[in-house]
């Protein structure tokens, strides 16, 4: 089963991203899907993908030529914590599977993972808005996994449950906007960051 062509999908548009991207087309054109692929040896390997698409059955997919647009960066875990997680009040430690929506851009990315030297200034990777979409990305992966292994039922069989789930999703609110601090930034008393 080949991945669908881009024209066969629509940009993935979870509610947590909607207030920032505006439209699905804008999400696909102007945002990237950034995944913490690996945490090893004190380094976090980030992989930046084009924004995903969704097919007619609700599967997330990436267009056949999307892999050619993938970019890589390696960030020391302490830098990631100090300059992204802590200023953004993310109390967890960086871990593989953390996922961000980021406005495209940044000079610190490389097309070849072997060339991905350590990046100490996260503003080189994230010049614009960065969102923590880990919960939605995890949920999408869980849906993919469970849908691949077990039957998927028709929604007409459980309209009340779907309505309740929809309400729950609506209550989640937008994704957390992350603060990207420069290496020399110092935390302020109010919890903010002065760069």
């Amino acid at each position, binding site marked *: 089963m080949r991945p669908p062509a881009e024209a066969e999908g629509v940009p993935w548009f979870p509610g947590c991203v909607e207030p920032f991207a505006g439209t699905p087309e804008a999400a696909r054109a102007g945002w990237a899907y950034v995944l913490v692929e690996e945490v090893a040896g004190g380094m976090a390997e980030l992989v930046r993908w084009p924004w995903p698409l969704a097919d007619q059955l609700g599967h997330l997919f*990436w267009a056949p030529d999307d892999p050619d647009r993938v970019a890589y960066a390696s960030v020391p875990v302490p830098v990631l914590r100090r300059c992204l997680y802590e200023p953004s009040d993310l109390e967890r430690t960086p871990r*593989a*599977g953390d996922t961000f929506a980021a406005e495209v851009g940044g000079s610190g990315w490389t097309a070849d993972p*072997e060339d991905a030297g350590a990046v100490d200034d996260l503003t080189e990777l994230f010049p614009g808005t960065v969102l923590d979409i880990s919960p939605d990305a995890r949920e999408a992966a869980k849906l*993919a*996994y469970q849908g691949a292994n077990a039957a998927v039922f028709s929604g007409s069989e459980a309209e009340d449950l779907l309505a309740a789930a929809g309400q729950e999703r609506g209550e989640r609110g937008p994704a957390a906007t992350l603060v990207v601090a420069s290496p020399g930034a110092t935390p302020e008393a109010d919890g903010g960051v002065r760069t």
Partner: protein
Amino acid sequence: MTPVLAPVESRVLGRAARAPGTLVKAIQEDPDALVYFLLNVGDGDTQLLLLPPDSNDGVRRVVVVDVATSGKLPALLESLHAVGALTEPPGSPGQIRLLVASHPHQDHIGGMADLLERYNGPSGCIDQFWEPGYFFPSPTFHALMAQLEASPWIRRLQPTSGLTFYVDAVRFTVVGPGVGLRTRFDTYGVEINDSSITVMVDYPATRIYMEPDPANPDRMNRRSVSGRSRRILLGGDAQFTSWAQATTDFPDLRQEQNPALARELRAARGRDYLAADVQAVPPRLQARHQPRADGARRGAVPAGLLDPRGRTVRLPARDRDGCRPGGPADDRELGGGAAERPRPGHPRHGGGAARPVRHPDGFGRGHGPPADRPPAPALPADGRREERDRPRGGAGGRQLTTA
């Protein structure tokens, strides 16, 4: 403290051969051997077990553990079929008896969606699929799940420690993840590498032989004989947490935790239960651009033949710096080629057409001794002597560095 790992003594290694055609010839001369391939796919894992001919129909089938890239494994299967080592053409029903995705990292599943697309159809080339049950929000994972959803005829399993699976004369025992770890996956508190399926492969699975009844030549008696099996331990990228759980599930692994139990287990099993001849486990994961502490290259490509009588192991010699970079000829054979880098996403990249066999041991880098190195002595013909010579009290074996 009893060492868990011990170096392989050179006398247990078969003569490392360099002449073109030697590995193919060795397979042909030892048709009951189980052959293990670790393909050179750069920063990633792709492993193939060419199973011995099935005792019921004589067909050789395969087990695949991880597929990092799209091209090399299909090329190897084509080449093995071309030289007669693989009985049926790639894609034949039931040929891939088991496909294991040790954990859902790109460098372990990057080529799986492609493999399913090539060989999987309702005729059922892929009989069974194992994965740890860890969902990961990567595009590669989504692509693989989409392929699986469209392949309902594949039996899926999320094994935990202790599961045993027999494929004719070969036994697969899952060492990790332990069920105590598996049940914590949903918390996202388990690191993805620790979700790795670690599997132990024993050949032969049992040692039951038939002999004529002395009192009645028309009847056969079955006899169980002692003698160690050959064992491969494939560890994915399991790290400390997974192995710590394994010490609970397999008390043999850390005998000082419960010496009395360890003694009883040893007496019952008659051997070091976890001793392995080949161990493909990562020493410790390091970042991509950092040099390996042990100096070993990633993507080493050994191959080994495991004889059912337990007397033949052919593995590449390894110099003191780790797996030796291969010469120009090393990467060219049996679907070889230079290290194929795992590519992100649905792998429609690398080609890897079948290539003619020119060098039997040339499955990639790290195979064969340096030109100025004398070949390792041949393994003694009597497998029992080897068992006697093995270091006691630990899982001795050859450790292959993978990541």
